[in-house]
Each structure stands twice: as C-alpha cells, then as structure tokens.
C-alpha cells in the first residue's frame, strides 16, 4: 500500500511538478485548445454550410473531409501533420511544433464541429427559411441572419463539449517533442516521470485536467438544462390568457 501511495501520490513529486504544470503547462494546453477550437469553429461552420448544400458537388468534398478526419485516430492526424509536414519540408510554422499541433487538432475539431453545426442548423424548423424567403431575402442572407443564429444556440452545449475534448486532445502534442516554454500539461508530466520514475507527476497533470474539465462539464450541463427548462413556449403550449393585455382587435380603429 505504501508503494502504491508512493508511486501515484508522492506529495513531494506532485508539489515539485505542480508549479510548472500550472504556469507553463496549463497555459500552453489552453492556447492549443483555444486556437484549435477557433480554427475548428471557423472551418466547421464553413463545412456545415457545404454539408447542407443542395448541390452534390458542394456536399461531397465536405462529406469526404468530415468522414476522413472523424475516421482517423487523432494520434494519426497529429503525426501526419506534425511529423509528416516538416519532414516533407513543408514548414508553414517553422520548427516549433505548436503551430502544427494547433493545425492538426483544429482540423480534427473542424470535422466534429461541422457535424454539430449541421445538426443544429437542420434542427431549425423549415418555416424559418420559408418566412425569410417569402420576405424576399436570399437563401444565403436567411441562412446567415435567421437560421444559423438559431442553430448555433441549439448546439452551444455540444460546442462547449468539443472544447473539453480539444483540451484533452492537446496532450497528443507530446508526440512532436516540445521545447521548454511551449510544453503543455501532459508533456511536462511525462518528462518529470522520465526523470523520477515516479507516476505522481501523471497524477498531478491528471488533477489539473480534471480541475479544469469537470467544472466546465457541469457548467455546460447547467447551461444546457437552463436552455431546456427556460425554453420559450411553442405554438402548442403558448400562454393562454395573455391576450387581454391588448384587447382583441385593439388598434383596428386606430389602424384603419
């Protein structure tokens, strides 16, 4: 039992590695997660528009992209982009692996986010598009001003969830070998373990992940619940008895 505690919960080891984890590690993890999410949101929104296009030649490339990046294990994508590109002398981000890591995780995010947006947009009743079109607005204008804002609102919880996934996937960057200063949580823990042969640094990194992701998950769930409960009444359960606020037909005389 003493061995077990020592291997995983060595307080000295944890305290030793924690400052680096919280300073350098958490910062870089959040940078990778946020920037890759930003890339994922932008590309994902574009892809979702293509996914719902009526023309097959717009739909097909987006579908293929989403299938590939959702189908590949994240570690393969990170390797292909982070190791493959520089070794093929394609170095848009120079020598630092950060850029490649953000690109790789961003591209994966884009595939998942595209599907999230697509389902959100398709959950908006078709009458919304019809109302916009009947007023003379173009398909694109109605999509951007009427349909997409409602669709995004429907999928905010799913998007927040995707951010949590991005936080965890950012650990795959360790594959690419980060320099001091750009290390994220997992890489710091792994290096500390390699020196000490003690797994407590992994536990410490895990605690930092959990301290961030668990509250975020609950925040998202609470937000999701509030959205559901506070959902505006639909046609079926509209508030009856509000009408007398303005007498029926009021303004008819004034309006005539």
């Amino acid at each position, binding site marked *: 039992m003493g061995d077990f505690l020592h291997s995983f919960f060595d307080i000295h080891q944890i305290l030793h590695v924690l400052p680096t984890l919280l300073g350098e590690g958490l910062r870089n993890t959040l940078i990778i997660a946020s920037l890759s999410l930003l890339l994922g949101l932008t590309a994902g929104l574009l892809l979702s528009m293509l996914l719902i296009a009526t023309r097959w030649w717009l739909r097909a490339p987006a579908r293929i992209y989403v299938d590939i990046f959702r189908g590949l294990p994240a570690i393969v994508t990170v390797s292909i982009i982070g190791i493959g590109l520089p070794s093929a002398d394609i170095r848009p981000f120079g020598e630092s692996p950060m850029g490649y890591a953000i690109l790789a995780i961003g591209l994966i995010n884009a595939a998942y986010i595209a599907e999230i947006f697509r389902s959100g947009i398709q959950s908006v009743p078709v009458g919304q598009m019809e109302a916009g079109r009947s007023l003379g607005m173009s398909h694109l204008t109605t999509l951007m001003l009427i349909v997409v804002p*409602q669709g995004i609102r429907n999928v905010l919880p799913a998007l927040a969830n995707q951010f949590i996934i991005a936080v965890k996937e950012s650990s795959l960057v360790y594959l690419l070998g980060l320099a001091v200063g750009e290390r994220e949580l997992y890489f710091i823990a792994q290096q500390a373990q390699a020196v000490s042969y003690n797994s407590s640094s992994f536990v410490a990194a895990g605690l930092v992940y959990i301290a961030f992701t668990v509250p975020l998950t609950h925040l998202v769930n609470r937000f999701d619940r509030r959205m559901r409960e506070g959902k505006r009444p639909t046609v079926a359960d509209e508030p009856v008895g509000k009408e007398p606020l303005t007498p029926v037909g009021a*303004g008819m005389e*004034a309006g005539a």
Partner: protein
Amino acid sequence: MEQTAIDDAKPRQRGGDRPVEPAVELLDICKSFGKVDVLKGVSATVVPGETVCLIGASGSGKSTLLRCINLLSPPTSGTIRVHGQVITAPKVDLNAVRSRIGMVFQHFNLFPHKSALDNITVALRRVRRMSRQEAEERALAQLEKVGLRSLASSRPGSLSGGQQQRVAIARSLAMEPDIMLFDEATSALDPELVKGVLDVMRDLATSSGMTMVVVTHEMNFAREVSDRVLFMDSGVIAEEGPARQLLADPQTPRLRSFLSQVL
C-alpha cells in the same frame, strides 16, 4: 371571372369596364411531390384589390396552390404571372418577386431570436436597404396598425399566438406588398384569439384594398369578406363563384358535402 366578381356589392379599385391587368394569373398549374399529384391543372385569376378565398378539405391542394404563387413550392408545370410578369420563367429575380408578395403562415414563423420590431426590420434593411431608423419607424407604424406597438421589444415567445400572428402580418405589410397570401392564418390559434387576427385581415381587405388570396377554414370570413371563393377538391378547382352565392347555393355535390361538414 370578371363577371362573377361584379355581382359582389363590395367596392373595389377597378377601372370601369376596361379589362384590368390581373394581379395573379395561374395557367394550368400542376404540382407533384414524387408520385403524388397534388395540383392537376389549376387555372385562376385574381384581379387587383380582390380578396379570393381558397376553401376545401385538407389535402385538396389549396395550401400548395397558395405556395406556388410566390414559388415557395415551384409548380411542376404551368405558368404564373404576377402583374403581367411571368415568374415561372427562368432567370426571374425571385427575391424581387417575393418581396412584393407578402405571406402569412399557419404557424406564424416569426424569428424567435428577434424582437417583434426586429422581425419586421430585418427584411426592410436587407431587402429594401433602409437605414435602421427608417426601418424602425416603418415597423413601429405597422405594429401600431395591428395594435401591438407597445410590445415592439417583446420576443415572439412571450407573445400569445394571436399577437404573434398579428406581428407576422405587420412584418409582411411593412414590405408594402402588392399581394398578400394567407395560409390558414388562424388555424393554429385558440378560438378566443382568432377574432383579433381576422379583424386585421378584414380591415386589410376592405379598407386598404389589398389584393388577397386566403386559404381558410373560416367560412364566415369567406362569406363576409371575400369577393370570390374557389373550392378545391383533389387538386382541381371544383367550383368557384361569388362568396355568398357559392356558399349559400353550392352547385356540385362535392362542395355540398364539404359545406355540410364545416358549416
């Protein structure tokens, strides 16, 4: 058709005996959804200022016919003219055509994420290219006309169905359309909210001289407000005529049996 319309007592903007250019002309309209033929060759004319009610059982094709007029459901074949312009021709600027034809839906279809005011201003700004101030002034004026100016900043979700439908009517009217289409505008409303909406529509037909095509189950509205009634059955116009005459003295067994069920 012109002849029958003259029988009606209601005054309307017409140029004496001169033939008036129709507001809407439907020529042999057919519409199929897959293998189902919903419209089987419908021809009809609506003159400016006229209110025409489309009645018939559900599935008879009346809503589909209405949705053909602004090409929300483009017909499979046939020709539609709106104020002389063939809108079923290729390369027609559909957005321009639709911006002159207002449509009111059974389920209102207000934009739930926008206030009543913004529901009205969005198309004024995007389609009519108005400034914010100009659009808001016109929107408020329209809300005033439907008696809802005080609720301009409310979201649709906090309005009753009747109020929502009146906002939807104001949204269409703000575009200053030549023609208004109503697709069962009161069918989704609780009975006590129907009157407020019908009053707005009645006022529009009688005082404003709007050209209106109204799909409705409200036979009293059809009788009192409309100039002509078209009875649709199985994708064709089975009978048509001046409202009072048609509803009081149906000629076809099909209309007789329909009226006996709804009246």
